[in-house]
């Protein structure tokens, strides 16, 4: 049951082969057994999950079920969920029980999905290894000495270890795609504005985008159908016709033009990753695709640009965490300034503080023009590169991450090395484009490798089609880690 697709699970629920309560209990039992080591979840609430499952069973019985009714989903702890502890991986929100539902949560609730729990993540989504979480690192189910990637590492690990049917993530610079790659699952970051950010705790507002994480492209399409849609509570949410992201899954790929940016296949990518990605490209040729060599000349600037803009926005977004109204407040302090300083010094971890300081610096009087404005200009150039490229190709492909999962603690002392693990994913966020990662084999130490597929704006249905056809032809996405009780 835990290896079947959402479509099959839904059919099984509809056919009363299993109830949602039973399915939910099955996952809860697995979580009880495996989560102590993997640490994929921060918060579980069996009663709440089972109550939702029973309600789903009623809906199923009443015949007003949707394709996700009764399906147990893990929610990244960045989404506010009414009545649930919502920590964003931080001590700062160690006691914050949300009084309201994020748009994404409400959409899943309306569809009748079951919330299995809140998944672990890098603190305020700042990190690429899940090691910055206040609630401890998440372990990669393929090798528990290795990181799952980040920041949606808890969700990725939970999907890979079959601790949920599917999960949600958010992606500011690669936080869905990179952990999906490192954990051997599929993940999609939609076009900026497709999924409402309402109730999703902000890291860098102009880059943040929520998306689904699952075991297959087909599952991703079903999840995105629920998550996407205009929401008037988010001014950056796009007013578009509702679409069925699964509509093109079965189109053949004959004549598909795949752009390969020469900058992605240069120095920096591990040879094991290169091998797996090239094999995937070869598979696509067999499926009828044609290869186009393209160039994204400004991509090399995306990491520095990102590390100006994202911290700038974050430094302001995180100002509300001041110990005044909710969240962590230092137990002892003198005056007001001291309360702020102590609460924030104690409530935030090192990486968050580093980014707040970078962001504060680049927005400061006298530095704003040199850093923030300059970075905004380059951001436009990076987006233009993609616009040019998409005149020649339908999708762009390359590695998701330069290496497979590294060891816990390996990059802890070197933030720049850590930042470089998002080198292939960041430009997509800067341009606001959709991007996804699907498993394409294994590299050194038998760790999963991710293939990144970048689409043009609003081309999610085509990307899912491209991914699904590959997954029909290959079995990488069906591989599961050892030692997860299968």
């Amino acid at each position, binding site marked *: 049951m835990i290896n079947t697709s959402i479509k099959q699970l839904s059919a099984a629920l509809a056919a009363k082969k299993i109830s949602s309560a039973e399915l939910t209990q099955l996952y809860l039992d697995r979580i009880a057994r495996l989560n102590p080591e993997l640490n994929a979840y921060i918060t579980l609430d069996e009663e709440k999950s089972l109550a939702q499952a029973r309600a789903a069973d009623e809906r199923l019985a009443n015949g007003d079920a949707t394709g996700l009714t009764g399906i147990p989903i893990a929610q990244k702890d960045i989404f506010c969920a009414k009545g649930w502890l919502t920590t964003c991986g931080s001590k700062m*929100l160690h006691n914050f029980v949300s009084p309201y539902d994020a748009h994404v949560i409400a959409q899943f609730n309306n569809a009748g999905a079951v919330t299995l729990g809140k998944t672990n993540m890098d603190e305020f989504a700042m990190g690429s290894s899940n090691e910055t979480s206040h609630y401890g690192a998440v372990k990669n189910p393929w090798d528990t000495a290795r990181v799952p990637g980040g920041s949606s590492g808890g969700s990725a690990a939970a999907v890979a270890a079959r601790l949920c049917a599917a999960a949600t993530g958010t992606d500011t610079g690669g936080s869905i795609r990179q952990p999906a790659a490192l954990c051997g699952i599929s993940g999609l970051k939609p076009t900026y504005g497709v999924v409402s950010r*309402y109730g999703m705790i902000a890291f860098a507002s102009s880059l943040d985008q929520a998306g689904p994480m699952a075991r297959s492209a087909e599952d991703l399409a079903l999840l995105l159908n629920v998550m996407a849609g205009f929401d008037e509570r988010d001014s950056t949410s796009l007013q578009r016709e509702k679409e069925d992201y699964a509509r093109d899954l079965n189109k053949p790929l004959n004549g598909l033009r795949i752009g390969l940016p020469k900058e992605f296949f240069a120095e920096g990518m591990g040879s094991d990753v290169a091998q797996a990605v090239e094999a995937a490209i070869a598979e696509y040729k067999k499926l009828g695709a044609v290869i186009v060599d393209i160039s994204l000349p400004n991509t090399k600037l995306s990491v520095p640009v990102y590390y100006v803009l994202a911290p700038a926005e974050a430094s*302001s977004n995180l100002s509300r965490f001041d110990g005044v109204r909710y969240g962590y407040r230092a137990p002892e302090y003198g005056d007001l300034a001291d309360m*702020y300083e102590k609460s924030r010094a104690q409530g935030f971890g090192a990486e968050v503080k580093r980014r707040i300081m970078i962001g504060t610096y680049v*927005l400061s009087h006298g530095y704003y023009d040199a850093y923030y404005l300059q970075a905004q200009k380059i951001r436009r150039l990076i987006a233009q590169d993609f616009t040019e490229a998409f005149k020649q190709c339908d999708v762009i492909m390359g590695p998701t991450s330069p290496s497979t999962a590294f060891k816990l603690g390996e990059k802890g002392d070197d933030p720049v090395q850590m930042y470089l693990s998002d080198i292939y994913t960041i430009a997509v966020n800067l341009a606001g484009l959709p991007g996804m990662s699907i498993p394409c084999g294994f590299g050194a130490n038998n760790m999963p490798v991710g293939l990144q597929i970048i689409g043009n704006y609003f081309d999610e249905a085509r990307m899912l089609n491209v991914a699904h056809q590959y997954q029909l032809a290959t079995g990488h996405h069906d591989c599961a880690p050892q030692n997860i009780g299968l």
Partner: protein
Amino acid sequence: MQWEIVIGLEVHTQLSTSSKIFSGASTAFGAEPNTQADAVSLALPGVLPVLNRGAVERAIKFGLAVGAHIAPRSVFARKNYFYPDLPKGYQISQFDLPVVGQGALAIQVEPLSGTGQSYEKVVRITRAHLEEDAGKSLHEDFHGMTGIDLNRAGTPLLEIVSEPDMRSAAEAVAYAKALHTLVRWIGISDGNMQEGSFRCDVNVSVRKLGEPLGTRREIKNLNSFKFMQQAIDYEVQWQIGTIENGGKIQQATILFNPDTGETRAMRSKEDAHDYRYFPDPDLLPLDISNDWIEQVRTTLPELPQTKQTRYVNEFGLSAYDASILAASRAMADFFETALAAVPNETKMCANWIMGEVSAQLNRDGLDMTQCPISAQQLGGILQRIVGNTLSNSGAKEVFRTMWAEGGEADAIIEAKGLKQVSDTGAIEALVDEIIAANADKVAEYRSGKDKLFGFFVGLAMKASKGKANPAQLNDILKRKLGQ
């Protein structure tokens, strides 16, 4: 030594939308603390701002009223600083691209000292931008701690910035008053100064005539015109004294203490915040189409200045009368509605409103919007005067009755028997009786004692119970006594 005073104002006016600028929470004043603080006002994790179009409309309306350029695209920026009543740790404001550009406001300056002539002056407006208000920190009743009330957080403000065009406290006060009249006139703010709907920051500097601008100090948060004048007077003297004693003015933010009449520094320039402004990524740029501007323009009432000019040119009123009648929209509406009943009697209508109506309002402590007599009712009285049905004294009695008890003019005239006697025959009969009964006085009058005429008028009026048409009575008396 000839000193010149240089003053510029920044006025924060709360806009009269029923909900906040970036959320649906109510903006009503005076609710229990934090009962109007929704998730957005509280800055809960994950919440986002959504712009209230009503606030934008009011900003456009103001811009049109001061002849300003409305920016087709303006941008909301974050002004970052920490304070407990600023829940997000930043204020959403507008920085380098405000919604309203340069405009101007013509003001009438009344000298405060009571000497000198009143004169007109045009004050340039630099810009006006939209922003959100902060909450309130409450320092009393919390046993040494501070209470936070976020009801006000997110209330829409229009910050109106003037050029440093004012040269005296009188000019600053005149400008502030004109602005205060204008925002209420065009209906974008209730202008309630006690409740903080209209708050003034005053930048003051002094220089010797002909020299470059001096260093300014900013007096924050003045909420009465009287305090504004006192604060400026004190501050000017302090600055001149400091310079004359060899000191230098340091840029600073200062507060005025109404109890002592003094100003004191709150923070110096060295402590000035670096607000780290940057465009708010949660809000799209604010695009305002020409259609929207034109649609708002149709809702703009005739402005005070235009009205005053029209009253002088069209109605032949004095500039003074025109300024009083156009002092508020309620006053002008009352005047114009009453005048509709007696279109040729502008002066009489004006006198009644500035006289009887204003006096009664003053006596009862009411303002024009609370007037118990409607403009139509007053028009009814004026019509009866014009039609010779009422004498002036009768009209005043009708007015007083109407004020106290309500009712229409004709009904009161009827009930009180105040209908004026304009029947020549009746008045002649009455005069004949008086002449017959006072033969001695008649003889005295006829022998040249003209002053006795008033005596006969008095008797005749008394006999008619005040109802005789005075002009007719005069004519008839003169004729009959002269015989």
